[in-house]
């Protein structure tokens, strides 16, 4: 039984090299909360790039879409597809061996240390009868070093700053060795330094990522593919230069936009019309 829990042995570097595995798509998603339709026939193509940014104004359905993509929310109609198969056919444990999720939800009063939390990333692969193996511990250590939280490993999560906490959560996701990492507004409430540090970490990951991102400039700089949501549907998907056009942003966000090129990346400044 224990053997069934183990995934094929592969190094952290190999995770993204699985070719087509871990690709999410959505077809005609509809979802309403208490009479308000949040998603309206949303269709998302499998991502082409490494880092897919989901952008859109408040209420456009970004977080709702993300919830559907990892099975936390079940659409009223339509289908989420994982590697071409309906997501609902996968058990939660099977999904966990493919996808890792980082959301902004806070835990409660019971506080684990950073290391304990990061090690939990191995839990989908370890039989409940067994302790973590040396390899599990090595993977957790590697992830904590990669995200720069190794020296915080004995600190309680509740004692961390926002940026530290975010990096610890990403370390847990990396320890899971997923094919894809989903992140919900990972730069929320972070100062500018940490916003860029976190986005660098995400875009530099050897994993494919889908990031819900509030900040268009961060998305334009760090994502190699962008999805723009508007009123519960996808109105554009593609490389940043092709998608983030002035006219589109002005319409979706109801602002005036000026485009700049900074270090080769498209950036915007905004004012009200």
């Amino acid at each position: 039984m224990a053997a069934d829990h183990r995934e094929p042995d592969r190094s952290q570097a190999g995770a993204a090299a699985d070719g087509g595995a871990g690709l999410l798509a959505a077809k005609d998603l509809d979802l309403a909360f208490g009479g308000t339709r949040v998603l309206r026939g949303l269709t998302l193509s499998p991502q082409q790039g490494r880092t897919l940014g989901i952008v859109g104004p408040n209420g456009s359905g970004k977080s709702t879409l993300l919830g559907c993509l990892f099975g936390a929310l079940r659409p009223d109609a339509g289908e989420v597809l994982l590697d071409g198969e309906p997501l609902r056919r996968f058990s939660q444990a099977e999904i966990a061996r493919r996808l890792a999720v980082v959301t902004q939800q806070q835990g409660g009063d019971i506080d684990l240390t950073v290391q304990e939390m990061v090690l939990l990333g191995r839990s989908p692969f370890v039989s409940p009868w067994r302790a973590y193996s040396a390899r599990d511990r090595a993977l957790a250590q590697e992830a904590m070093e990669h995200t720069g939280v190794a020296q915080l490993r004995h600190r309680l999560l509740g004692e961390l700053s926002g940026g530290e906490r975010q990096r610890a959560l990403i370390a847990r996701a990396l320890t899971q060795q997923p094919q894809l990492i989903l992140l919900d507004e990972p730069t929320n409430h972070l100062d500018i330094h940490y916003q860029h540090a976190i986005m660098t970490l995400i875009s530099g990951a050897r994993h494919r990522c889908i990031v819900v991102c509030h900040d268009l400039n961060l998305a334009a700089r760090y994502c190699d593919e962008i999805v723009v949501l508007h009123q519960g549907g996808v109105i554009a998907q593609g490389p940043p230069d092709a998608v983030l056009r002035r006219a589109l942003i002005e319409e979706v966000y109801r602002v005036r936009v000026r485009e700049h090129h900074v270090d080769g990346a498209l950036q915007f400044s905004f004012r009200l019309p």
Partner: protein
Amino acid sequence: MLVPGSVLVTAAGIAAGPVPIPLSSLTRILGHELGFGPAELGAELESHRNIVMSTRIPRVLLGFAVGAGLALAGCVVQVLVRNILAEPYLLGISSGATAGAAASILFGYGSALGVWGLTGSAFAGAIAAIVLVLAVSGIGGTANSTRLILAGIAVSFMLAALTNFMVFASQGQSGARSVLFWMLGSLQQARWEQLAPTWLTVVLAGAVFWLWSRRLDALALGDDASRSLGIDAPAFRRLAFLLVAFLVAVVVSVSGSIGFVGLVVPHLARRAVGAVHRLVLPVSALMGGSLLVAADLVARTAFAPRELPLGILTALLGTPLLLILVHRFNRRRNET
């Protein structure tokens, strides 16, 4: 350290009481019972043997199982609702079980099933209470702590009133007295035949909880995080609540409702070994068992020959900690 400590407390619990029994006599009696001691005990030892075998040992062993069970239930419930103020007593689970037990005693239904009829009735009460509390406080995923505790207290009051009403309506003197025993909580009526079912339930539930250790760790991080780690949090929570309710029902059906063990012990255990459930669960079980045996020892001897109901003692000891935690809780919420 905890294991020898538990053994020591248990031995002390057997030895001390209105008739103190020296440890040397105790070892000789146990040796006699296990078949490798003296064949004849003599008059004094024989009377001690009676006390030890008929009241002390069942009482202490039952007390240990009850304490361990309540501590385990407290640990798990606190994770399920993500709130360290939660415990079976405060969430109304114990009152529900008490009401169920009272109904069974006073009106005799389920009596055909013997001890298990009482337990079944207590279980139904416990489940009803927890379902009501969770429904009222609207906990789907993340619980609003204040609402949850308030709902628990309201349901506790309601069920206590219901129990009182049943006592009032039933007229029978003896029934009323045994229901009072349930409401105050006591190990006074411990019997040998209760030991096996109680220990079995506590050990099995503890083993299942222990196998769930990492799930519980993950749940402590939040529902999204648990889902990311492959756990369907709402489904898991329902299942775990069911097992907790069963455990509490069994415990309450033998000891009545003893509060605050499930609050105090997990708190102490986490302070000692951190929050990881692979450690917290066994440590809590041993601490809970020892604590309850020690508390029972005090309850039996402090006002001898009168006996203080155990539930009163644990409430006197446990409520100050609850007050401290509530105070700290408020301060932290205000800071953030």
